């Protein structure tokens, strides 16, 4: 073993210093994730057992949060119609970075049991980047907790890069959004 008295300590390059800071940040980020639960689909009924005494989510550090600006994870539970997709895109772009998206159930994957409906989109991946899917209709609560632990491990291994993909391939996502929604502007139909 080389003695360190006579060899110079190696200076870390800028990328390595950045990476070390980023690793420390990842430790804090994966141990205290705050979720914004977009509970408009059927899979939202799996969340009360995950939050309360049955399968406690707070021991992993996760908790519910009230607004998108304060949250880390956007939890899409179930199907999305064209109307809801507009609002989800608004919400996703309001969150502060780094941000992650989790899709619960089969409906964000390929449409689920609503795949032949005239109002439900079939693939969430085309419009916003998704990091983790939890399959099932609906998934058992243990599968939901497993999905969250998978997301924490992805953050540790630095493969949860949805928000970087959204920034780099912005034109592709915007093209898909325009094809399905026209322009992403919210109108208030009841008062116009």
């Amino acid at each position: 073993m080389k003695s360190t008295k006579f060899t110079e300590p190696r200076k870390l390059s800028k990328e390595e210093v950045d990476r070390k800071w980023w690793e420390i940040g990842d430790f804090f980020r994966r141990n205290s994730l705050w979720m914004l639960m977009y509970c408009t689909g059927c899979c939202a009924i799996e969340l009360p057992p995950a939050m309360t005494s049955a399968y406690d989510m707070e021991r992993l550090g996760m908790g519910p949060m009230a607004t998108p600006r304060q949250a880390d994870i956007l939890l899409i539970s179930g199907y999305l119609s064209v109307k809801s997709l507009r609002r989800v895109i608004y919400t996703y772009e309001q969150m502060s970075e780094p941000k992650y998206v989790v899709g619960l159930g089969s409906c964000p994957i390929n449409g689920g049991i609503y795949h032949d409906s005239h109002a439900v989109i079939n693939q969430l991946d085309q419009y916003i980047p998704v990091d983790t899917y939890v399959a099932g209709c609906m998934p058992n609560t243990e599968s939901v907790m497993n999905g969250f632990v998978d997301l924490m491990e992805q953050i540790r291994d630095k493969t949860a890069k949805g928000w970087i993909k959204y920034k780099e391939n912005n034109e592709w996502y915007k093209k898909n959004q325009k094809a399905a929604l026209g322009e992403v502007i919210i109108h208030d139909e009841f008062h116009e």
Partner: protein
Amino acid sequence: MMNSMNNVEFLKGLMNQNFKIVETDVIDQYQVSFVLKQADVLQALVTLRNAGWIQMSYLSAVDWPDENKIEVVYILMNWERPVHIQIRTKIDRNDPVMPTIIHIYPGAKYYERECHEFFGVKFPGNPDYQKQLILEMWDDMPPLRKDFDPKAYSDRKFTKREYNEDYLVLSDQNDKKAKREARKERAESLKGGQKI
């Protein structure tokens, strides 16, 4: 509270006295349904409103493609004599026009918008019955008609996820092959809602 059979009798007496009813159906002691001609509907609603049926619960339509008619349904409710009334009329399917009722029940404004969006029924007199309420970016026929194919619309508009077919390989057991073919043929023949 009045006896409910009394209420139904009162109602039947009221309607038979004033209008020529095509068909009456007493579903149970709280629900009655009358089928009228299209020209009588407005007058019937005014009479019923003055007799106490002041709440409009629902306005919708049923599509009968075989008879080539659309049946418009109004459901009313009374708080003193608790009987739900359904007023039904059949109108022409190719050009369905029904006069608006927002001067009788102002809350029907949004119901008529929804009925126009999903069935194509026009309501002249309602200033904004053509505005979009629920469906967005719609460019096809009204979706609740029976000859609308939702799967074709979904295939056209939303991209589907593609899967590799490597795990869908059917086993090549010959003794079950005849049963498998028969099952597949039956499934194909049931597509599109047609009976065998």
